[in-house]
């Protein structure tokens, strides 16, 4: 497998190069696959499973995470279907219930990827899951940064950013299973190397890592997801490609 090849997502031909994941090829083709733990510029983790797609046909197919699964020639991928999106919606809903997510008082609201994913996936029906309502810490020790772990979804972005980009290792996982949490490598954030300019401080998809003094600066209507559904930028690429080709004619 050396040269570029084709595979299909929901019946649409997509071009890929060897080594590309399903998600990377989809992004380039302007097909959005929902995701929370994966973000451009950090290594893939495959933790949240919101990107789960089915490969290899409906009956015999198996579920894989599109952010880690390599694309293969001829692969049939099921992505934007009611069945896939229902599983994703349940996953996102469970993330809401596992922490304490009070969007009306959260400064990330409107810029939050978890909230935006809930809107994209139409999380509006009465819930079937219990709220766990955990007691979690607020760490406001650092002069520039606060951590409200009530909103942490354990996506690991801050961990990867701090280790791989900042070369600091400020964040890490502690505990196992449902008790696995993200912790800092000091008594509190003030007793770590954390600095506002760290890449880790800009990757949190939710309102857990808070940059002090910036809250609610953007008015309602001008926030990131006030301009469109999460993923609309990627979906816009498909149109751009066509427009570019048309222009060349």
């Amino acid at each position, binding site marked *: 497998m050396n040269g570029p090849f084709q595979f299909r997502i929901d019946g649409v031909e997509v071009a890929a190069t060897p080594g590309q994941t399903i998600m990377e090829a989809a992004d380039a083709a302007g097909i959005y696959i929902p995701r929370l733990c994966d973000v451009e510029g950090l290594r893939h983790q495959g933790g949240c499973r919101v990107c789960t797609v089915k490969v290899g046909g409906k009956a015999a197919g198996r579920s894989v995470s599109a952010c880690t699964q390599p694309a293969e020639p001829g692969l049939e991928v099921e992505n934007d279907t009611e069945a896939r999106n229902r599983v994703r919606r349940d996953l996102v809903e469970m993330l809401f219930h596992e922490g304490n997510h009070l969007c009306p008082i959260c400064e990330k609201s409107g810029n939050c990827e978890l*909230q935006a994913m809930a809107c994209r996936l139409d999380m509006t029906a009465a819930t079937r899951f219990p709220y766990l309502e*955990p007691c979690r810490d607020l760490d406001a020790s650092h002069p520039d940064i606060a951590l409200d772990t009530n909103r942490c979804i354990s996506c690991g972005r801050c961990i990867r950013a701090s280790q791989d980009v900042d070369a600091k290792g400020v964040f890490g996982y502690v505990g196992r299973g449902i008790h696995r949490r993200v912790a800092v490598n000091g008594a509190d954030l003030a007793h770590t190397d954390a600095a506002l300019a760290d890449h880790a401080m800009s990757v949190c998809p939710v309102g857990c890592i808070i940059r002090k003094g910036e809250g609610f600066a953007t008015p309602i209507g001008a926030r990131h997801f006030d301009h469109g559904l999460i993923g609309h930028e990627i979906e816009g690429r498909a149109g751009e490609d066509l427009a570019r080709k048309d222009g060349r004619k």
Partner: protein
Amino acid sequence: MTEPRKARVATVSLAGCFGCHMAILDIDERLIALMERVEFDRSPLTDIKTFNRRCDIGIIEGGCCNEENVHTLIDFRKNCDVLIALGQCAIMGGLPAMRNAIMHSADPLRECLEEAYLTGPYLRNTTRLIPNDPVLPLILDKVYPCSEIVDIDYQIPGCAPSGDIIFSTLVALLDGKFTGFERETLRFD
């Protein structure tokens, strides 16, 4: 032939701030068109306090934080064909549910009331008492979303929901054509 009757709408504010009722007024001049098709029955807008006849649509603002809220909500379910939870408080408890986070302590209600009336740093309570008049509804162990108490047919998210989403949802329901929300219009705040 008799004129088709107007749909009867009942509304109530449980553990809410009345912001969702204010949001109903954000329908603005379209209220005139809406009022051609509906009449408000039991509602703070009419000051009718009990159900005297069956209603087509019940709109609930707020979750349940005391026993009276629970009785009222069950009464709405019994008397309304379609029940709508309007706003984050009704849907998931909202701001009042902030107190649920302390509910893991050994004596949560006591802790909550003591902080609210006795020990909180910004208090002025000259009686030094926690209110316990018998006419006050008993406060619940925690704040419950409406869907944990009764079946809810539709939930309109927002804090408060926009006049647009309330209007378009009501009109679609009246037309029998509600098939879901436009995802671009969904807000959780």
